[in-house]
């Protein structure tokens, strides 16, 4: 069982390496979105400092979302999704493996470059560690929730934009808790509550996502 999941993760990671490496592209998108902000809000250090954490998190959300589209879409188009449904591996396992592959290939690299962007955005020094920690705790929830959205829209023609409409509201709790936790550290406030809430939300999404996504795929097949 575990072996099957591992097999799927390896395949998905390999696919994300081929053809111009979608990983590089997610990272570049992340960097570009963040660098647009100094142009958009003006170069004042004070404002940048205040919004830095939020902007980095929003950019991470958007980048992670951007690569969701391909999580099931290409499998659907070439008929592989049907074969996954028919295969002896339970569909819940298949989608879970795909979520993990998505996190590894799109969120993990974001976490690695986030400190660089912190420098660009004038993030206060005490903010780096909380930024990384909240990203580690929060980004899996993005893959899980986003995965539900991807599975809901996969069978729709051009579901891409609908996808964002469905999942962005669900991303908001992650954003709120992550930013609250990181800011609490920066301001020296108590932080455990927020961290627990953030982790709780991630665990909760991990618990429901495989079932919801598998159900959505089964419902969407035609």
């Amino acid at each position: 069982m575990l072996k099957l999941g591992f097999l799927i993760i390896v395949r998905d990671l390999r696919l994300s390496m081929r053809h111009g490496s979608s990983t590089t592209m997610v990272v570049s998108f992340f960097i570009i979105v963040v660098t647009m902000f100094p142009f958009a809000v003006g170069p004042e250090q004070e404002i940048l400092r205040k919004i830095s954490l939020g902007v980095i998190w929003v950019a991470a959300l958007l980048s992670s979302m951007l690569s969701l589209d391909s999580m099931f879409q290409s499998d659907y188009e070439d008929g592989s999704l049907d074969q996954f449904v028919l295969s002896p591996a339970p569909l819940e396992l298949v989608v879970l493996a795909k979520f993990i592959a998505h996190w590894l290939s799109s969120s993990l690299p974001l976490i690695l470059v986030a400190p660089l962007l912190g420098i660009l955005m004038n993030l206060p020094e005490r903010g780096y560690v909380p930024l990384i920690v909240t990203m580690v705790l929060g980004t899996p929830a993005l893959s899980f929730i986003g995965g539900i959205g991807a599975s809901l829209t996969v069978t729709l023609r051009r579901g891409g934009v609908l996808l964002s409409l469905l999942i962005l509201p669900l991303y908001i709790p992650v954003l709120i808790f992550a930013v609250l936790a990181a800011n609490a550290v920066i301001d020296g406030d108590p932080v455990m509550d927020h961290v627990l809430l953030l982790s709780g939300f991630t665990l909760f999404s991990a618990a429901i996502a495989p079932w919801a996504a598998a159900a959505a795929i089964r419902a969407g097949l035609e």
Partner: protein
Amino acid sequence: MSDILRGYDLACIRGEKPVFSNLEFELPPGQALILSGTNGSGKSSLLKIIAGLLPAQRGRISFFDENILGDQDWISHNICYLAHKNSLKAEMTVAENLAFWAALDQYDGDIREKAVKVGIDHCLDLPVCYLSSGQARRAALARVLCHPGEFWLLDEPTVGLDSKGVRLLADLMADHLDKGGRILAATHIELGLDPAKTTTLNMLDYTFSAHEAFHELFQEPWEEDFQC
């Protein structure tokens, strides 16, 4: 108790369009059932229903007195489904594709040997996007050979194949039947299988009128109190 796969009273409605109803079939071991019928008569839909990829509007399919309709566990271990689409990843090589599906379907035979059988071995190391339409179809057929399932559901397997490819496919199907496997295939081409082992199911015998279908959907006569 019977080792015959039997469909009873099957009906299908797609996107509110009634496709077929009262369909019955029998498939004993070592036999092939060829679905024939005009375009749009519901061949692909029937195959998808049997594979559990499409819900049937009504009916059941029994095997050893169990209803296997929608029984994912049974289906996943016994059925191998070849669709119109090839289920191959364009970015990966043929060999990688086949190895992946074989591992997922828990097949542990020799993949290269099967590839030789469908004449695609010289393309094993090419990415699928470099294949011509017929080569890609052959690769998809190789996947069928690398599946341990006893039941083959083939939806127009000959599409894109040249005449040698069609003969090759017929031989492979005959082989599978000889080994006691069973085949359900939708095709518009005469494959030349042994007539003693082949039954043909004409989809046109099971048409479904809209009137009936509407009752079916809403479970009660409707016209009596509502005319339009």
